[in-house]
């Protein structure tokens, strides 16, 4: 068929994500969207807005704040939330460290510390469906993830007990205390995300594009100065033209040297890159061969 109704790849991915959002709205009592202001969660929110237009998005947002944020991202987060008139809940790792429920790790990264505040927020607000921006192309363990992923009352992922997922009939049944993690972007690749951001003209935090910044080299990654500490002794500060490929906890999210100052340049760079998104700039995935799986078993996204 040659009419405008034949969907291209981005159209199919968009349509599938919208279908998933509406299924959750139809079947769950208290869904929430995890939102950090990064590109995947911004894309997620954009799709949610489309799914319920012209009505408002019927879910609140939740940010698990490690305290190690880039200012530009927090500013962007608050602008987007205000623009869509949404409610944002923030669960702060810093609160847990301050009152002794969590201890700072020797390596200074707070990314793994997000799990406890996340699970507490889910339990406290009685959220029964939690949307995340995870994609199966990110990592081997993620590739095994269902679109509807049941978590037990400890928030744990049990890979051997996953439900089969058939056609586009999603089974969201769960018992009290259990919840379902929902991944509408499961079938997107990093390049699909960027192509879609370009097609839709979606605004992102400025640090995704090339800019000058003082950085220092640690474990082969360019880190910026921030509340996460550094540079340490022997780590030299240099001004470089860099951009961020992922935006997470500042202590373990590295920048890449790049001149890609606009979206076309970013797409060209991602298409030509020989490094994966997480491998290039995420220290937390380098901890072991199965680092992601282990964290997901604990309740991490």
């Amino acid at each position: 068929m040659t009419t405008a109704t034949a969907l291209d790849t981005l159209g199919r991915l968009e349509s599938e994500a919208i279908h998933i959002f509406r299924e959750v709205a139809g079947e769950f009592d208290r869904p929430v969207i995890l939102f950090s202001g990064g590109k995947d969660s911004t894309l997620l929110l954009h799709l949610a807005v489309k799914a319920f237009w012209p009505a408002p998005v019927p879910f609140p947002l939740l940010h698990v704040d490690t305290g190690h944020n880039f200012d530009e991202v927090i500013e962007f987060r608050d602008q987007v939330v205000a623009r869509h008139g949404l409610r944002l809940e923030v669960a702060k790792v810093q609160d847990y460290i301050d009152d002794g429920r969590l201890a700072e790790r020797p390596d200074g990264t707070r990314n793994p510390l997000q799990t406890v505040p996340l699970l507490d927020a889910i339990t406290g607000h009685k959220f029964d469906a939690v949307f995340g921006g995870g994609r199966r192309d990110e990592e081997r363990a993620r590739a095994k993830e269902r679109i509807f992923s049941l978590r037990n009352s400890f928030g744990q992922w049990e890979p051997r007990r996953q439900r089969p997922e058939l056609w586009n009939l999603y089974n969201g049944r769960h018992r009290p205390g259990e919840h379902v993690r929902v991944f509408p972007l499961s079938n997107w690749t990093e390049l699909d995300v960027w192509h879609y951001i370009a097609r839709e003209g979606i605004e992102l935090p400025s640090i995704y594009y090339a800019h000058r910044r003082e950085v220092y080299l640690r474990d082969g990654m360019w880190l910026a100065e921030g509340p996460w500490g550094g540079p340490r002794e022997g780590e030299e500060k240099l001004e470089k033209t860099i951009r961020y490929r992922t935006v997470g906890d500042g202590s373990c999210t590295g920048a890449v040297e790049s001149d890609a100052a606009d979206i076309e340049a970013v797409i060209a760079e991602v298409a030509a890159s020989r490094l994966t998104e997480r491998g290039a700039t995420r220290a937390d995935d380098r901890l072991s061969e199965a680092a992601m799986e282990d964290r997901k078993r604990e309740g991490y996204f």
Partner: protein
Amino acid sequence: MSDLLRLATAGSVDDGKSTLVGRLLYDTKSVLADTLDAVHRASADRGLTTPDLSLLVDGLRSEREQGITIDVAYRYFATPKRSFVLADTPGHVQYTRNTVTGASTAQLGVLLVDARKGVIEQTRRHAAVLALLGVPRLVLAVNKIDLVDFDEVTFARIAKEFTAHATALGYAEDAVVEIPVSALAGDNVVERSARTPWYDGPTLLEHLESVPVEPDAHDAPFRFPVQYVIRPRTAEHPDYRGYAGQVAAGTVRVGDEIAVLPAGLRSTVTGIDTADGPLPEAAAGHSVTLLLAHDLDISRGDLIATAGQPPRVTDEFDATVCWLSEKPLTPGARVLVKHGTRTVQAIVTELRTRFDEQKLGSTDAPDSLSLNEIGQVSVRTAEPIPVDDYTKDRRTGAFLVIDAADGSTLAAGLVGAPLPEVDGVDSCTEGGDAALPDNHALVSPGP
């Protein structure tokens, strides 16, 4: 030509499926340097001298420990000609349910056999499952062809046997292709092999890039399960009432007459909305919001269909189920049926036949269906639902069987789908076996 192909792999354990998928990813340069470094490191840690490509895909700890695939994984790769979504499914018998998972959305199935063993029972079973689930095309990758010295005669024998099996399952000959490959060495996966000069067909990748993809069913009767009613009640849209959903089959145009089922109400489509503006028409796969001429009582679970060719509305139907749970199915079981966006209480009133995996025929009324078994059943639902036959419409003919107590998915259901019958097996001649349902494989005569 479509720019996307969804495929599922299937095959017996240890026939090299993960290696084949790893090889496809590796040779299409879909594996990036850091991932490859990790595989090199992990292979070296295991004392291997060449990288073990299966480590690219076997992502779970226990998979890597045991060297087997436990769960379905989805892989994405692209060439300049096409994008691919690959459901990499395990071959172990106890995980056959994952073959069903992968096959439910696939447009093509890639079956692997070991060239030394040829077509085995598991191959025949997997092909039957793919046929049952309506996967339109099959590829048989005859793997480890290097271990039979690239022997043309061996390949030809396996190819002939498989073609015969697939055509018996209902496949047209041009829907089935056999390719001699070595996943380990890379012969005929992406690169053409000089060691099989007698083979003039495509490499696996060439075939995947060029095989026709069945288009979405744009010409089928229109089907639209209502997911959610959009009622903004805002100053801008005080009276807006739209029915949100994804077109499951067919095409809808503004002005079309529709029926709302199961109630049987009629109306006319006055608008097709999206966040990007209104559309004159929408076809299968498209998520849209329908506006209707009349204020009807429509909610999640209803099905909007073309008024001229509605589905049948019934509270009793026959179906094939692939049983996916450790809890066996017995007649009289009370379950939930999720069909489209509606979930209803149901009773499996009768187990009519069981698919005999040894003979690829069906046998008479079993006492129960257990994990991985496939059978025909009769279902009675607490309220009427609008169903199509699975063979006519993969979306509105499909349903889930769910355990009402713990919410687990018990089975994949296919309305009306007859079980594959191969080699002229006639289930009617085996009525005497019904008293001994568990001994079928033992008492039945050999082929």
